[in-house]
């Protein structure tokens, strides 16, 4: 826990119910949430950040993009704004661009933030822009969000044609400059194309916030084949806390654990983590989903879409508690909480 962010009441309530060993382990570990949407509607430094940090989350990957399909100008100015926002709070948080930065932030008791892009449209079809975003601090990027763009097909598209030539160039450039290649939201073939490029470069492929298709066949969840391809590169998959993908309207920890357990059984605990994908303003998100049916087609089994909850940061400790109660060894639990991401980040980023 950090001095500048006291434990929240919600966290304390979870803490009281949790196994003492789980609490001790949780509070002494690096806890890294691999995805927190941080576009203008979601970014709130006074409510969301204190809630996460006050629930023991020490590192957060922020999606610094308003919407998929954003233009270059919008994306660059938004990254600049988030950097300025964070710089104004330098005593409590900092943007990290290396594994060393994350360790140092933790040692200094400040929140570690990592910048991520979901969708490659802001590259403006220029592979050279990958290095520009890298210079601005972006360290994780996925090429295409659900639909189709100039880089490839997304997971909700009618077709599944893999990466385009430009998409291959962009992924190679990400690998060259040291940006984590993320296969979340992309189509199956795109992700396998990405795994091939990562393997050729000797770098891990990550899936930062996706659940298991074998547990629930939502198009946003990843198949065992995709998981194996990522794991073969040394990658890590982050379990998502969005109710619709679990599926569980309440987005309970038990539902998340089912996906985590499948992932760990399939791939081993050193290839698992979590990327909660938490949204403060759920109604706004569900309205955007309904307004963009092309990006969010119908659910499996003709299931009707309901406005599900999003797992909150306090559930990270619950997840830890569940792992401990299931008898997972300490190092496996620490890995899932954040050490696995730190390991692959170090390999992706270099240094």
């Amino acid at each position, binding site marked *: 826990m950090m001095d500048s962010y006291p434990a929240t009441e919600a966290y304390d309530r979870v803490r009281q119910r949790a196994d003492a060993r789980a609490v001790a382990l949780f509070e002494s570990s690096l806890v890294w949430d691999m995805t927190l949407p941080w576009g203008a509607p979601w970014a709130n430094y006074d409510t969301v950040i204190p809630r996460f940090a006050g629930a023991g989350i020490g590192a957060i990957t922020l999606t610094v993009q308003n919407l998929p399909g954003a*233009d*270059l*100008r919008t994306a*660059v*100015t938004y*990254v*600049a*704004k988030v*950097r*300025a926002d964070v*710089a104004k709070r330098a005593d409590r948080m900092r943007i990290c661009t290396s594994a060393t930065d994350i360790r140092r932030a933790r040692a200094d008791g400040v929140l570690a933030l990592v910048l991520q892009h979901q969708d490659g449209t802001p590259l*403006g079809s*220029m592979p*050279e*822009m990958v*290095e*520009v975003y890298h*210079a*601005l*601090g972006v360290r994780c990027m996925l090429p295409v969000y659900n639909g189709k763009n100039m880089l490839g097909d997304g997971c909700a598209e009618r077709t599944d044609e893999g990466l385009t030539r430009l998409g291959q160039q962009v992924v190679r450039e990400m690998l060259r400059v040291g940006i984590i290649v993320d296969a979340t939201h992309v189509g199956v073939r795109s992700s396998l194309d990405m795994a091939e490029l990562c393997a050729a470069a000797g770098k891990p492929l990550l899936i930062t916030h996706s659940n298991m298709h074998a547990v629930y066949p939502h198009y946003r969840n990843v198949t065992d084949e995709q998981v194996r391809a990522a794991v073969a590169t040394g990658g890590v998959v982050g379990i998502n806390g969005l109710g619709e993908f679990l599926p569980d309207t309440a987005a309970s920890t038990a539902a998340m654990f089912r996906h985590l357990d499948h992932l760990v059984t399939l791939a081993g605990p050193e290839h698992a983590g979590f990327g909660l994908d938490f949204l403060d303003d759920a109604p706004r998100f569900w309205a955007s989903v309904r307004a963009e049916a092309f990006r969010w087609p119908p659910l499996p089994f003709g299931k009707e879409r309901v406005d599900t909850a999003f797992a909150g940061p306090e559930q990270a400790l619950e997840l830890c508690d569940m792992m401990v109660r299931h008898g997972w060894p300490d190092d496996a639990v620490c890995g899932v909480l954040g050490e696995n991401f730190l390991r692959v980040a170090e390999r992706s980023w270099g240094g």
Partner: protein
Amino acid sequence: MSGLAGPTAGVGPGASATDKTARALTQDALVWDNTLPWGPTYADADTWLRFHRAGVDLISLTVMGPEALLDGTVRQIARVRAAIQAQPDRFALCGTADDVLAAKAAGKLGLVFNLQETDMLEGRLEMVQAYYDLGVRHMLLAYNARNHVGDGCAERSDGGLSRWGLEVVAEMNRVGMLVDGTHTGYRTTMDAMEACTAPFIFSHCNAYAVHPHYRNIRDDQITACARSGGVVGLNGLGEFLGDDAAGSASIFRHLDHMVQLVGAEHVGLGLDYVRDTGRFWNWVRDNAHMWPAGPDDRAGSAFAQPEQVEELAGLMLRAGYAEQAVRGILGGNWLRVARQVWR
């Protein structure tokens, strides 16, 4: 080129001892050209190598000038960064004074970026830091015409720095980006120098007292710049020199005026070399609002060539400048302000 025909052109068998000293000094000293236009229509790879062969160790590339916004500027920066990184054995993108010295020590051409306008901030103060992080180390406030920050040097009016302009200067100071008064209106530069808390520069300007062109700067601007600890870079564009051939002797007249006025430690080079001069002059003619008539008929003058740096060194030596003074003017003075201001 006509500009090459200077008093010390060519160090052949008949070259004087001064010529040889000038050549040795140009090769040995840190030589820093603080302005080379490098927008999308200016960039060509041969030019970098030519400058490097002429003894230039560090070039500040104007990655974007007027008539551009954020999108085009960031894209051009992306292209230029990629071009530099494609040849890491020859070129080095520099961010600090130490980077500049390391590049020279490694025999590489060092490069930094500048912007000749503030339009590409698009009203967002936080873009100053973003451009800085992408390699921009100086930015001039207004290019000839008026913008949100203030008036340019060729504008009808000269009302000084805007409220937003004051914020831009303060943010540049906070970030460590040099504030550049080139192309900017007189009052606007005087206001900016008053507001600026760091050494202020004119990256590529000549002396109005020597040739009364609106692109040149007055003695009190030069004096205020020197008082801030800053440097004025000599421009090699014939029209501003008052010499359509852009001869080294003409550059030296402006240089010597400034040295006599404020001392050698406040003078440097910002040659402003353009390869495709025809295209440049056509652009000037098409943009009369930015380029009104100067004191003379516009003749489509020549631009000083990078090889003239050596000629200039020779002229300074012949005029009795101390070696240390010459080294400062060739690049040491820019290095000093970079060390003070860049982070």
